[in-house]
C-alpha cells in the first residue's frame, strides 16, 4: 500500500510537471532577505527566466527550486525591490542566498508585495505591507494593524473605534490571529480601541478570508498571520516614537554578526501618569485611579548553520485599570476612629512564547518545529476594609472579591515544505495543543469566610494534521489541493473533522486569472461575548458534550489581474454557511457565575454571502486601494427571534474604503482614508403595551413599571450609515545620526457623529420620548514624533 502511494505520488509529480522522470535535475535553495536589514522577504518570487516557472519564499524567507541540469538564469524579485538575476551553470545542488535592495526613488513610496495576484493559486488573501500600514492615518496616532485590515473588502469593523474583525459575516472569535505562529486570544487593548500589535515589531501581515490552504485550521472565518521582525543582522539600530497616547521604543541588531540577532520593542500608554495626580488632587487625597496598557515584543534568532536556525520570540501585553480609595473618619466626641480602604481593579492581557527551529533535511525538504505557549487571563478584584477603633476595642469589617477567567495553551507542531519540482509545492505537518479553559470563577471573602463559585477549569486536547500540494496542471491551471484533519478531546468526548480544501487558478492568455475555491473548516473553541465590543470579559470556552464544534464551508469564485505591475484588481464572490454558533441567551451574561456557561447559551447557524472588489495601486508616487463589499449575513437560532432568521448585528450591505498615500517629495508624505458602511443592525422597540399586574392578591402591583416593550424582530432596524475621513501628513528629515519623522493627522476630520448605540430617553423640555443616538469618536487630531537611529 505504502509503495503504491509513493509510486502514485511520483507519477503524479512527473505527469503534472511535464518533465521526464529520469532527467538530471538539481536544486537551488536558500533565503531571500532585505539587504539593508537582513529581514526575511516573505513571498518573494524566485523563477527561471526562460520559462517563468518558479516558486516563492515561505514565511522564513526560504525557497527551493529544482530544475533540469542546464545553464539557467534565476530571477529574484519582490515588488518595491530591485530584481536580481543571476545565471548559473546548474550541474549540482546549489545553495544561493540572495539579498535584495529597495528600488524606490526617494520620492516614491516603498510598497512591497509578494507574488503577483494572478500567479497565486490562493484567493481571498491580502498582504498589506507594514510601510503602508504605518503611512495611513490612525486613531490618536497609534498605528493599528487590525484597524488597517478593517479597511479591506470582506472585513467589517464592528462598533466605532474598535479593533474587532468580522470577516465575511463571521464573528470575532472565528479569526485565527497568529503572531509568529502562536494564537493570540485577545488582540485588543483599552476595551477594543487599540490592537496589541506594535507595528514597529512586525515584518509581515497576511489576511486570508477564504480558500484556506490545508495548513491552516481551527477557526472558521479568517487567518491573520503576523510575522515579527527578526532583528537586523547588519547593524544595531532603533526607533523611538512619542505619541499622544503612548510612546514606544524598538531596538534591534546583531549579537553575533550574521549569526545571532535580537529585537526588543516596548510600548506603554501614559494617561495614568497625568490623570492619577489630578484625581488625587480633586478628591482631597482620598482617591487615586488610572488606566494604562503596555506590551513588549522580544525576539532572538540564531543561525547555527545554513541548515539550522532557531527563533525564540515572546509577546507580553497587559491592560490595568485601578481605583483606590482611602479615608479616615474621626468622631472626637465619642473617641471613635474609622479607617476605610477600598481598592478596585481590572487586569487583563496575553503572554505568549514561541521557540521555532528550522532544519533543512535536503535542499528540497524544509522543516520547522514550533513549541508555543499562549495565555490570556482576565481578573477583576475588589478589596474593602473598614477598621473602627473605639475605646471598647477594635472592629474590622472586610470584603474581598476576585473574578478570574482565561485560557492557557501549550502547543507543538512540525511543518514540512517539500519542493520536488517547480510544479509542486507540497506542505504537510502535524500539531497538538493542550488547552486549559477557565470560564469564570468568582471568589469572595467576607470577614474571613471564603466562597468560591463558577465554572470548573476544563482541559482539552486538540490535534491536527494536514497535507497540501500547490501544483501546476499544464501552463494555465494551478491547483492547491489538500486535506486538513483535526480532532478534539474534552471530558472524554471526542470530535473529529476531515476538511477538504481546494483552490484553482486558471490563467487566461490576457493575464486574467480566474479563481475558485472550496474550504471546510472546524473550530473547537467558542467565544462567549455579550457586548459585541470586545470586552476583556469575553470568555473562551471549549466544545463540550453538549456544545458541538463550530463548522463551516465556503465557496468562492473570482477574477484577478495585474496591470503594468502597478495596478491590481480582484473581484470575488463567496457563499459561507456556519453551524453550531453560540450566543448568550437573551439577557444572560458572564456575571451569572452561579450557572454553568453551557446553560446560558443558544446554539444556531449562520449564512453569509457577498461580492468584494479590491482595486489597488502598488507603485508610484500615489499608492493605495479602493475596496467595496456588497454582503449579506444572517443568523438563525431556534430560541431567538421565534426561530426566524435575522440579520447579523454586523451585516453590512455596502462597505467602501478608500485609502491613498501620496509621496509629495522625498520629505513629505500625505495620506488619507475614507470609509463608508451601511449602519449596523439593531433591535429597537416599535410598540409598548400595558403590563399584566397579575392576580396574586397584592394591593400594590409591584416596583416595576407598567409597560412592556415590543420588538418587531431581532436586528430589524439599521443605525445610520457610518462614514469618516482621516487625513495625515508626515515630514521626514535625514539627520546626521538618524531619520526624524514628524506626523500629524486628524481622525474623523469632518466630525461625523457616527452611531455607537441608540437609546430612548425623555426630552426634559417637552417631556416627550425620543430616540437618541450616542456617538463615541468625534474629530481627534494627533501628533507623533519618531526617530530612527
Amino acid at each position, binding site marked *: 500500500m505504502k509503495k503504491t502511494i509513493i509510486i502514485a505520488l511520483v507519477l503524479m509529480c512527473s505527469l503534472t510537471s511535464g518533465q521526464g522522470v529520469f532527467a538530471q535535475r538539481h536544486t537551488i535553495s536558500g533565503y531571500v532577505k532585505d539587504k539593508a536589514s537582513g529581514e526575511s522577504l516573505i513571498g518573494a518570487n524566485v523563477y527561471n527566466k526562460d520559462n517563468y516557472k518558479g516558486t516563492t519564499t515561505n514565511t522564513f524567507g526560504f525557497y527551493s527550486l529544482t530544475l533540469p541540469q542546464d545553464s539557467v538564469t534565476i530571477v529574484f524579485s519582490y515588488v518595491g525591490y530591485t530584481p536580481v538575476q543571476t545565471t548559473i551553470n546548474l550541474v549540482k545542488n546549489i545553495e544561493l542566498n540572495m539579498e535584495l535592495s529597495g528600488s524606490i526613488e526617494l520620492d516614491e513610496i516603498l510598497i512591497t508585495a509578494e507574488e503577483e495576484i494572478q500567479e497565486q493559486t490562493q484567493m481571498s488573501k491580502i498582504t498589506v505591507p507594514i510601510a503602508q500600514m504605518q503611512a495611513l492615518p490612525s486613531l490618536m496616532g497609534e498605528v493599528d494593524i487590525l484597524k488597517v485590515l478593517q479597511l479591506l473588502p470582506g472585513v467589517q469593523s464592528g462598533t466605532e473605534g474598535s479593533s474587532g474583525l468580522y470577516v465575511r459575516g463571521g464573528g470575532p472569535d472565528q479569526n485565527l490571529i497568529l503572531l509568529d505562529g502562536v494564537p493570540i486570544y485577545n488582540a485588543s487593548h483599552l476595551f477594543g480601541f487599540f490592537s496589541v500589535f506594535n507595528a514597529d515589531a512586525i515584518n509581515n501581515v497576511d489576511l486570508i478570508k477564504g480558500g484556506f490552504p490545508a495548513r491552516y485550521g481551527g477557526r472558521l472565518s479568517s487567518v491573520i498571520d503576523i510575522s515579527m521582525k527578526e532583528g537586523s543582522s547588519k547593524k544595531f539600530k532603533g526607533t523611538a516614537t512619542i505619541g499622544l497616547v503612548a510612546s514606544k521604543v524598538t531596538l534591534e541588531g546583531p549579537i553575533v554578526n550574521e549569526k545571532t540577532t535580537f529585537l526588543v520593542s516596548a510600548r506603554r500608554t501614559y494617561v495614568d501618569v497625568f490623570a492619577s495626580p489630578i484625581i488625587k488632587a480633586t478628591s482631597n487625597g482620598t482617591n487615586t485611579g488610572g488606566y494604562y496598557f503596555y506590551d513588549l515584543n522580544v525576539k532572538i534568532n540564531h543561525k547555527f548553520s545554513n541548515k539550522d536556525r532557531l527563533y525564540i520570540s515572546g509577546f507580553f501585553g497587559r491592560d490595568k485599570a485601578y481605583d483606590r480609595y482611602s479615608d479616615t473618619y474621626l468622631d472626637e466626641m465619642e473617641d471613635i476612629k474609622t479607617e476605610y480602604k477600598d481598592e478596585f481593579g*481590572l487586569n487583563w492581557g496575553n503572554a505568549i512564547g514561541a521557540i521555532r527551529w528550522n532544519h533543512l533535511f535536503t535542499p528540497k525538504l524544509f522543516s520547522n518545529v514550533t513549541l508555543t505557549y499562549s495565555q490570556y487571563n482576565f481578573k*477583576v478584584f475588589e478589596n474593602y476594609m473598614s477598621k473602627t477603633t473605639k475605646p471598647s476595642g477594635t472592629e474590622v469589617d472586610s470584603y474581598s472579591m476576585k*473574578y478570574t477567567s482565561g485560557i492557557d495553551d501549550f502547543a507543538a507542531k512540525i511543518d514540512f515544505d517539500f519542493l520536488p519540482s517547480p510544479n509542486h509545492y507540497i506542505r504537510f505537518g502535524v500539531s497538538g495543543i493542550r488547552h486549559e479553559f477557565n470560564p469564570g470563577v468568582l471568589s469572595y471573602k*467576607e470577614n474571613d469566610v471564603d466562597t468560591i463559585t463558577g465554572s470548573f477549569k476544563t482541559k482539552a486536547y486538540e490535534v491536527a494534521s494536514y497535507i497540501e500540494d500547490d501544483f501546476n496542471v499544464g501552463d494555465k491551471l494551478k491547483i492547491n489541493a489538500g486535506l486538513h484533519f483535526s480532532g478534539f478531546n474534552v471530558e472524554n468526548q471526542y470530535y473529529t473533522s476531515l476538511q477538504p480544501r481546494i483552490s484553482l487558478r486558471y490563467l487566461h492568455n490576457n493575464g486574467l486569472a480566474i479563481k475558485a475555491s472550496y474550504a471546510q473548516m472546524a473550530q473547537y473553541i467558542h467565544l462567549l461575548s*455579550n*457586548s*459585541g*465590543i470586545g470586552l*476583556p*470579559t469575553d470568555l473562551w470556552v471549549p466544545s463540550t458534550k453538549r456544545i458541538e464544534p463550530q463548522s463551516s464551508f465556503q465557496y468562492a469564485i473570482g477574477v484577478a489581474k495585474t496591470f503594468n505591475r502597478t495596478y491590481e484588481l480582484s473581484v470575488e464572490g463567496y457563499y459561507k454557511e456556519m453551524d453550531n454558533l453560540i450566543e*448568550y441567551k*437573551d*439577557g444572560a*451574561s*458572564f*456575571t*451569572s457565575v*452561579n*450557572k454553568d456557561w453551557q446553560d446560558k447559551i443558544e446554539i444556531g447557524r449562520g449564512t453569509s454571502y457577498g461580492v468584494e472588489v479590491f482595486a489597488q495601486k502598488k507603485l508610484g508616487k500615489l499608492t493605495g486601494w479602493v475596496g467595496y463589499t456588497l454582503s449579506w449575513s444572517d443568523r438563525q437560532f431556534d430560541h431567538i427571534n421565534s426561530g426566524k432568521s435575522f440579520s447579523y448585528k454586523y451585516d453590512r450591505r455596502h462597505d467602501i474604503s478608500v485609502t491613498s498615500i501620496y509621496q509629495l517629495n522625498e520629505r513629505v508624505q500625505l495620506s488619507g482614508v475614507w470609509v463608508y458602511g451601511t449602519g449596523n443592525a439593531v*433591535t*429597537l*422597540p*416599535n*410598540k*409598548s*403595551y*400595558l*403590563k*399584566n399586574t*397579575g*392576580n*396574586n*392578591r*397584592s*394591593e*400594590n402591583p409591584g*416596583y*416595576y*413599571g407598567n*409597560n*412592556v*416593550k*415590543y*420588538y418587531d424582530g431581532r436586528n430589524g*432596524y439599521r443605525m445610520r450609515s457610518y462614514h469618516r475621513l482621516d487625513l495625515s501628513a508626515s515630514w521626514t528629515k535625514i539627520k546626521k545620526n538618524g531619520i526624524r519623522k514628524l506626523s500629524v493627522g486628524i481622525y474623523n476630520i469632518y466630525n461625523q*457623529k457616527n452611531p455607537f*448605540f*441608540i*437609546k*430612548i430617553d*425623555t426630552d426634559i423640555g417637552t*417631556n416627550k*420620548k425620543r*430616540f*437618541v*443616538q*450616542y*456617538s*463615541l469618536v*468625534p474629530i481627534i487630531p494627533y501628533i507623533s514624533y519618531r526617530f530612527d537611529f
Partner: protein
Amino acid sequence: MKKILLFPIITITLFLGCQTVIDIKIADEPPKLVINSTLDPDEFIKVHVSLDQHILLERDYKTISAAQVEIFENGTLFTTLPDSTNGYYISATHKPQKGKTYRVSVSKEGFENASAKVIVPMESVKISSIKMDTVEQEGGKYLQFSIELIDDKDIENFYEISILREAYKYNYDYSGEYPVLLDSSLIKDMVSLESNDPGLEEFQTWGTNRILYNDDLFNGKTYNIKVLTSPYYSYEFSEDGEGKEYGSNPKYHLVVGNTSKSYFSYELSYQLQEWTNDDPFSEPVQVYNNITNGYGILGACNYSSFVVE
C-alpha cells in the same frame, strides 16, 4: 459585574461622546388589542383589554370598553364577561377550575379578534414547611423565609413566590409646616425579594417582587428555597416634625403559585427585559406573548397563601 465593567464605557460615551436626537421611522402600525388576565380558581374571572401604542408615546394606554369578551371552557362557551370600568371585564359568577382549558376571545369593531388559550394547573403547590428567621448578610439584617416545596415528578411545574406584608399606609397632608396624618389603612404590600438560590438567573436574585422557578433542578424532589427581604421599618412623625424610626412585626402573607408555563414565561421575560433595559450592549429581550392577533398574556395560577408571623 458586567455593569461595573460597562459603566466606564457607558459613562465616557454619555458624557464625552456626542448625543444626536435622531428620527427613526418606526412604522406607525394600527394598534392591536392587548389582553391581560391571570385565571385563578379562587377568583372570579377578570380580563383587562387595552390597546398597544407607538413606542414614543407617553400617554396612558387606551382601554377598550364595550368589547365582546367570551370565555370558553374546554371548547364550550362558559361565560361572556360584562364590561366593567377602565377596560376591565369581570365575571360576577364564574370562576375557572383546575385542570380545565380556557380560551378568551375578545372582539371589538375596528380591530382583529384577539384570543388566547391556557390550561389552569391541576394542583396547588405542596408546601411541607415554612420558616421565617432573621439572618445577617453583607452587613445587614434580613428576614429569611425558608420554603420547602414538594414537587410532583410527573408534571412540569412552574412556581411563583411573592410575599405580601400587612402594613399601614399613612396618608399625610404635607401642605403645612409639618406633615399632618390624615388617615391610615392596612394594606397588603408586595415586598422586594432577594435570593442566593442557584436555580435563579442573576436578574432574579435581587430587586424583584416575584421569584419564579421551574422544577428543572428538583423535579420530583423536595426542595428548599430561601428568599430574603429587608425587615420592616416605618417612620412616624412626632409633633416636632422629627422622623422617628421604629421597627414592627407585621404579618406576612407568603403567596406561592403553581403557574401555567405561559404566565411563567411572560413574567420571567418581563423581568429580564427590565433588567437589561439600561444596558445598550445587551440584546433586548422580547417578552413572551400568547395572544393571537394581539399582545399580552392569558396566564393561570393556583395560588396558596400562608400567613407567617
